[in-house]
């Protein structure tokens, strides 16, 4: 085995998706194991400007946006994670989620963390396929109790002491 070679790409299956079940300041992250196909969109809205003297329109960066979706494979019987997601959707409660390219207990794992709101769930039950719910989300407008605005942030894991 060539011990001086390291793999480049990584698959979606190797990533980890968590929600925070405690507080933003002192989180307790719970892995959502039954998710797949996590997609995110992040970047500024580009607005075109036009004026009399311009030969062509040009773009200027607008507000940055963060949104996305993931699929949740339903489990027959009790499923506390799915129930939690449904409660959060129905109550409009802000969820703090994190997506990392490795487990949260490794400093090498990098990804993002963001407070989000869940949108309209769309469930598909079709023939041989497992029942899957597509869950869209968008960054929530929120503040900590100290009054600090909370936005999308890059996030790394930490190795426990």
């Amino acid at each position, binding site marked *: 085995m060539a011990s001086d070679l390291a793999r480049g790409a990584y698959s979606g299956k190797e990533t980890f998706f*968590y929600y925070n*079940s*405690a507080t933003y*300041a002192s989180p*307790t*992250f*719970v892995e959502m194991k039954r998710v797949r196909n996590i997609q995110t969109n992040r970047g500024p809205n580009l607005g075109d400007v036009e004026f009399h003297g311009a030969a062509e329109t040009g773009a200027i960066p607008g507000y940055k946006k963060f949104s996305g979706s993931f699929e949740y494979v339903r489990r027959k019987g009790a499923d506390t994670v799915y129930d939690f997601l449904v409660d959060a959707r129905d109550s409009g409660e802000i969820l703090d989620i994190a997506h990392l390219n490795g487990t949260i*207990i490794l400093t090498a794992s990098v990804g993002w963390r963001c407070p989000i709101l869940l949108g309209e769930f769309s469930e598909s039950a079709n023939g041989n396929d497992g029942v899957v719910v597509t869950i869209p989300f968008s960054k929530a407008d929120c503040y900590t109790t100290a009054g600090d605005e909370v936005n999308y942030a890059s996030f790394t894991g930490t190795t*426990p002491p």
Partner: protein
Amino acid sequence: MITPISRHELAELASKLADPELKSWCDGSGILDSGEIVYADTEMLSRCFASAGSFSQESKPKSKRKKESKREDIQRQRGPKLDPIADVGQGSQDERITRS
């Protein structure tokens, strides 16, 4: 910092806490099946264990505690461990004293 802990251990911890803030944090953290591992904030967990009066032992995951106690048993059977590095250090210090 994040510390892995089982839902069962968190629930047990919550039952020992009198402070409503800490209790609520522990309860909020434990919504899963009892065997499920969650990743809790180490500082808050330390506060909870300290408040429950048993931080030193219970803050460590069960498997780690078992390993440690097993290691301690073996150590007890073998007798005191000699530390070669400490001996060398002691020797060189003695040498320095003699030379000066």
